Structures are given as structure tokens and as C-alpha cells.
């Protein structure tokens, strides 16, 4: 199950979730505390110099171990679905 996390307020995330028709959870980390703990902070990367998360994806199993991850070098470049699905199939 995907879980989306950003600094957006719950209302903003809910808007995006509805507009795109997603059914998985969207979590709000408005103070970027979890983003900081995961070492993903992009200082002043947002509009008006706000701190945001860099794009990053982690596939984790039930023991909370990372099984696959992706850090893009270019915000326009998204992860390849094939790699992710292969890693997901390997989890029993």
C-alpha cells in the first residue's frame, strides 16, 4: 500500500487525493519533523523559502526494513515501476 507524505496541510492533501482519485493515505508533516528524521529535508526548496521534502520512495516490509528505495537526481524524473514491482514481489 502506498503512503504519501509531504509538508502539505491535511486539507491540501485531501484535495489532491480526491482530485486524483487516490484511496491510499496521505500524511501531513507540516513541521517536516519526520522528513528531517528520515534525512530528506530540502531546505528552502518550496515556494517562499519554505522547507520541503526532497522526492524519495522507500519500500518497507512488515519489520520496517527498507527493501527498495529511490532518490531521484532530477525532480522531473520519476521512479521506474518495473524495479519497484520486482522488489515488491520479493516480499512475502
Amino acid at each position, binding site marked *: *500500500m*502506498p*503512503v*504519501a*507524505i*509531504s*509538508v*502539505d496541510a*491535511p*486539507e*491540501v*492533501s*485531501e484535495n*489532491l*487525493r480526491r482530485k486524483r482519485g487516490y484511496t491510499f*493515505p*496521505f*500524511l*501531513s*508533516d507540516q513541521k517536516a519533523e*519526520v522528513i528531517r*528524521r*528520515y*534525512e*530528506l*529535508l*530540502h*531546505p528552502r*526548496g*518550496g*515556494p517562499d523559502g519554505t522547507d*520541503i*521534502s*526532497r*522526492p*524519495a*520512495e*522507500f*519500500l518497507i*516490509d*512488515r*519489520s*520496517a*526494513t*527498507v*527493501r*527498495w*528505495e529511490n*532518490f531521484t*537526481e*532530477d*525532480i*522531473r*524524473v*520519476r521512479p*521506474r515501476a518495473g524495479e*519497484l514491482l520486482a522488489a*515488491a514481489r520479493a*516480499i*512475502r
Partner: protein
Amino acid sequence: MVDTAARKRTLAPWMGLLLTLLGALSNGLPFVGFPAAPVPWISLLLSLIGFVVVLLGLWGAFGQSTVYKGKLSGSIAAAFSLLFLAVAIVFFWDARHIPAESASAPQVGQLVPDFRLWDSAGHSVSLTQLFSGSAGKEPPKALLLVFYRGYW
């Protein structure tokens, strides 16, 4: 005596201008649901090629002014294409300007820290709870944590 009417028009500056404009605009493609994954360089490359074409046109207008006309139009095209090229360069730099200190982010094989955040319906949820599954649904075998930039 040169017959000015016989000098050829050159479309090169305008073709080049169009290319640099397309290059700059193509930076917006990922935002309309067209990810640039296979060719992240395409926007910059288009603009660069366009600018070279404009320069070739200028060279025709100024260097071979007995053959080609269009000194004024060529110069205008060059000014605008330089602007679009600058836009493409700024977008290119900005898209790749991601902090590199994620070296200490969780790596494959490591455990990720638990957390508790508000979901978009106003419920407080933890990573552990997400794994336990919601009412009537089977608990997920895996989670894909997608951190995104927000402000969508």
C-alpha cells in the same frame, strides 16, 4: 551594385526561436502528467539546438548579407531565443538542485524510524498502525513510503 530584392529570406532565426521556446515550455510537461523520465536533458537540448540555429541564421544575415536579408528580424529572434535558453537553463538547474545530504537517509536493509502523523481525514496514524490494516482490510505486506515535495 547589389540587388536587395534578390536577397534570400532566411527562416533559420525563426525556426531556432521556435525550438528554444519549445525547449523552455517542455519543462512544464511533468506537471501535466507527462514524466520526463527517459529524457531529462531534452528541454535543455532543444533550447541549445534552437539557439545554435538562430546563430546560424544571424551569421547568414550579417556574414553573408549579400545573400541573405533579415538583420533586424534575426537580431530580435536572437534576443528572445537567448531569453528562452536562459529559462531552460534555470529550470534544468533547479530540477536537479536537490540536497545531497540524504547519504544518512535509511538505506536498503536498514530499519526506518516509526512516526506518527495526521492523515488527510484528520486522524493521527503511526507507521505501526498502517501495517496493522484498517477495519475489514487485510494488513498490507509492505508499504511504499512516498515522500513528495508538496504544494501540488
